[in-house]
Structures are given as C-alpha cells and as structure tokens.
C-alpha cells in the first residue's frame, strides 16, 4: 500500500493506493494540483479512464472538498463510490442564500454526477467502511450515527478513519479531517483498537483544536493513537499552521519520532508570503511501507536541519 499526502497548500488530500486500487480522502486545497496529481500519477485504462474506487469527503469545508466539482465533472474519472459526511446538506439552514458559491457549485456537481452515473452519495459512520482490493480497507471510527453535539459542528463531525493493508502491517494511517477534542472524546468512548495507528494525519492542519488547550490536545492525541510518524497538511497562507503549541504537545507525548509538514510553517521562521521562491518544506509526503516518511523534496532532512530553517519546529531532539 502507498499513501500520498499531497502538498495542496492549505487543505487536505490523501491518495491511497493498494495495487491497482485507488481511494482518495478529501480533495481540498488547490484544485489544479489535485487534478494534476490524479491525472499524472494514477493509472489510466486504454480508454484514458482513471478508476477511483472510493472518494471520501471528511466534512464540508472548502479546504477539504474544493477540488471535488472538477473531478466529478471530468469524464476521465470513474468514481466507484462517493462518501460524504451528513453535513453535505446542512440541516437547519434558515436561508439557502447563505450557502457560499463553492457550496452551490459542489451541490450542482454532485447532482449532475448522480444523474450521469445513477449513483448515490453514501454516508460513512462509525464502523462502516470500504475495501480496497483484497487486503486493504478504510474503516470509519467517527462520526457516530447519532450526532453527539448539539448544533452540528462540522469539524467535530469530521469523518475519522483508518487506512490499513494486511500485507503492510506497519503502516496503519489514521486520517482525521478537522476532528477536535469532542470527536476524540466520542471515539475513545467506543473502541481502543480502532484508532491505533502508525502514521497520524494530524487534524485541522495543525491548527487550534476547537477551543481545547492545543498542547494537551496534541499530547493526548499522540498518546491515544500511538503513531510514531505525524504528517501535517498545511499551507503557507495560514502562516501559523501548525501551531507551536500543537508541535509542543506532539513532542511532549514522546512517542513520535518523525514529523513532516507539506509546506513550511510560519512558526518555522515565517516565510515571506509574496516570495514565490520561499522554501516549501517537505512537499507531498508519502508512506510506502518503509519506517520513515518519504518526502517529495529529497533535501527535506537537510533543509530543516540546515541553515535554511534555523528554528525548525519539526525537530524532535
């Protein structure tokens, strides 16, 4: 199994491949970069069609679904199943005009896709999931069937799930959307085994966790998941992601031996936002069965330890 955490700026996109089988979790961030990766990296059949067996949108925030309309409209993608959280259609919305332009565009795209393919959007709740070939699977551990928190907070109800492959026992990957402390309070009330993982995609791009103390949150999450590698999909635009206190919490837990951010954090020296040549950190991060995170930019290790980033926040020692 191979899992790519794409460098898409501020946003999330995770591509899972097991043999010829492909699943994607979130398609946020820069749509062009998502589309380019999918069309150049994924295998196409003789008719040029790219098969994606499952596409999951963890929750309805633009940095997690922004690239979806382009994928749904593009006839070259054949999507087996589209999974979305129940906040796809926010209940209790008083005035539909409050939906942003992107949300309307998303709904249009989904309806067109449904009409074209005859398929329906699937919900994905705790305990549900899908297989990827004969050995790999994605299993959701959150959200619960009954909303836990009044008001339906989107981050809290993010789909959280684990990707795993029986043939690669050392690379269980926990994908967390923008889950917050309330999500993990609900998850830990249910199962101990379900979220133990080797690699953790840190929730909310390493940003603040819904009002909970960030250091305590990060520490508790690392001790709960027991991952030894942490990936953060961030963008230079949100210059403080990941938050320094989040990184302090990850260090405090003591179990993580590797952290990689897809882009350089503002906490690591604050890149000049108008400088297109600013350092870009790890780029797309890959997990492919080895003990370490593979980075798109081979000089990443030297980069964070060298003179370019004097105060690299991912340094664990």
């Amino acid at each position, binding site marked *: 199994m191979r899992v790519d955490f794409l460098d898409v700026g501020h946003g999330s996109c995770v591509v899972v491949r097991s043999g010829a089988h492909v699943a994607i979790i979130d398609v946020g961030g820069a749509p062009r970069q998502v589309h380019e990766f999918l069309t150049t990296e994924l295998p196409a059949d003789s008719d040029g069609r790219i098969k994606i067996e499952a596409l999951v949108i963890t929750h309805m925030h633009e940095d997690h679904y922004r690239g979806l309309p382009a994928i749904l409209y593009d006839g070259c993608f054949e999507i087996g199943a589209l999974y979305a959280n129940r906040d796809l259609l926010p209940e209790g919305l008083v005035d539909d005009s409050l939906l942003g332009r992107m949300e309307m565009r998303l709904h249009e795209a989904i309806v067109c896709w449904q009409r074209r393919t005859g398929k329906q959007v699937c*919900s994905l709740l705790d*305990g*549900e999931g899908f297989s990827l070939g004969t050995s790999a699977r994605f299993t959701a551990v959150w959200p619960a069937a009954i909303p836990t928190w009044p008001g339906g907070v989107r981050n809290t109800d993010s789909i959280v799930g684990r990707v795993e492959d029986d043939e690669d026992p050392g690379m269980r990957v926990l994908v967390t959307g923008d889950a917050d402390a309330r999500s993990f309070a609900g998850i830990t009330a249910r199962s*101990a085994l379900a979220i133990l993982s080797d690699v953790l995609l840190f929730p909310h791009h390493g940003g603040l966790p819904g009002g909970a103390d960030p250091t305590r949150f990060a520490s508790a999450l690392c001790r709960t998941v027991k991952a030894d590698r942490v990936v953060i999909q961030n963008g230079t635009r949100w210059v*403080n992601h990941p938050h320094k206190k989040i990184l302090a919490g990850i260090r405090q837990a003591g179990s993580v031996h590797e952290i990689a951010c897809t882009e350089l954090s503002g906490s690591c020296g604050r890149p000049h*936002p108008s400088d297109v040549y600013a350092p870009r950190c790890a780029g797309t991060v890959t997990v492919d069965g080895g003990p370490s995170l593979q980075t798109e930019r081979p000089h990443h290790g030297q980069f964070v330890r060298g003179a370019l980033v004097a105060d690299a926040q991912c340094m664990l020692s």
Partner: protein
Amino acid sequence: MIPTAPQSSKRVLLFDDQRTAGTRRAERLRSELGVDVRYVWDVEQTIDEILLSRYDLCVLDYSDVRGWGDTRCGLDIVKRGISESTINRDTPVMIYTMFTIRPDEIDELEHYGRIVEVKNQVLGMEGIVEAVAHWLDLPWTRSEIVTSRVWGVGEIQDWSETERQATVIVPSWSDSTELVVEWSWLGQELVEELSVLIGELEGGVSEANPLLVRVEYNENALRSYELDLRVLDRIGPAAAFRSSVTWTSAPERIDPEEPTDTPAGKRAAGKVPAAEVWESLHEEWVNLASTAGGEEGD
C-alpha cells in the same frame, strides 16, 4: 427583494480574505450594480487567472490579518495583490483593511498601482456597493431592510471605539469561537455585518438555535439590544439541490475490533493499552472536550 440592476460593461476585481462575506459582497455587486465581478479570496491560488484579465476597478478588502501573524504580513499581501492583478497600472485600486497603513507605506503602494482610496476599516455589505458605485459612476441607492427578525443577544469583547471593531464570542454550541464585526451604533453596517456573520456560522444558527450577541460599550456599561437582522429574499439554486441529492448508507460494515491473527492485528494488539490506561485517556478527552468551544474555522 433586492432589485437586479441592468447589466453593466464594468469589470471589478474583488479581493476579500473572508470567503463567505466576500462571496456575498460579490453577489451584491453583481445583483445591485450589474457589474462583472471576479472574486478572489486567495491570491496564492488564482493569480494566473487574474493576470489574464483587465479590470475597471480593483477592491482589496483585507479585514482579518490575525491569521497572517502580524499586520506587516497582511500589507505584503496587499502589495502583491495590487502588483500582480493590475496589468494596467491605471486601474484604480481601493484598499480597506483592519490595520493601519502609514503614509510612507501609502507612498510605496502607489508605485504598485493607482491607489484611489485607502481606509483603515472594512466596509459593510452596502458600504462596498456604495463605494464601487461611486468610483464607477453607476446609479445606486441604499435599499431598505426588507425583513426584521430578533434572534437575541450575545457577547462582543475587546471593543474598540476608535477602530470601530469588536470581537464577538459566540456560545460553544455554534460553529465559530471568534469573529470580527464592524461596529456602528445599531446602524446599517452592524446589522449587515451580523448577517454576514451568520453566513460564516454556516448554518449553525437558526431561530431554534439563536446566535446570542450582547453589545458592550461605554466603560463597562453593559446593555443588550435586539438586533434587526437582514434576511435576504433570495433563494439560491441550492434550494433545489437540497431535495435532489440522494443518500444511501455505506455498503460495507467493518468490525473495528479485528481478529488478532492477522499481521496487522498482531501489531495493533501489541500497542493496545491496558484498560485502566485507556479509561484514563478517555477521561482526559472528556475533560478536553468540556473545555472546547466552537469550531476554529477551516
């Protein structure tokens, strides 16, 4: 009902870092002035598309510089927005920010483009329509508030009279913990910004689940107001889509407590904490959750 203006040939480039508000500002400009609006919220991602077009007016509305770390960073973005968006340096540029731009910085900005207006404030919905109408010499008059609703009161903290802004702390059951609204004395601007604010709460507020806003002013004197909220009489296409999207449950149910005779299961079993450790962890999460407020944005 908001009147729809006849189509104009004018093209406006609108930068606005608050996406929900920016989308609605762009819609208002289109519907009320008939101008062709290109709305951009993220300079980083759309710069190529912007470079291909010419505009009659460029509006930069950067209200929220908190996420950028400091005000200088926000100013750099404004510079880049100007320099990379206006091929024709004669395109008039209006800048509205929450942070102060010094006179020497304005001089510097003028090297990048033709700055026609710089204000240390963020315009409300109608304010921006009015400003664009003025600079493009288009006919426009303020519309009346068409619908009034009372949804209650809430808390505004860190209010500053000079900067006309306040931080609103909304209760934990809503979708956001911290939003900035423009302040005015129960006037049009505050009313409008609150309607934007509700948009940014993304459906978390309703009559049954009201947003509470309490306005604090004048040296600790605390007063509560019933605020009129503009409810736009527009039904977007999403209304139709809502009933069109169909759902099914996931086709597969997977037991998360998998057998430990697989390689993955054996590895996981080695990591499983003792029951009392797990209970302690769960307790820690419950405590963390109880201190958590609302959502922290995207």
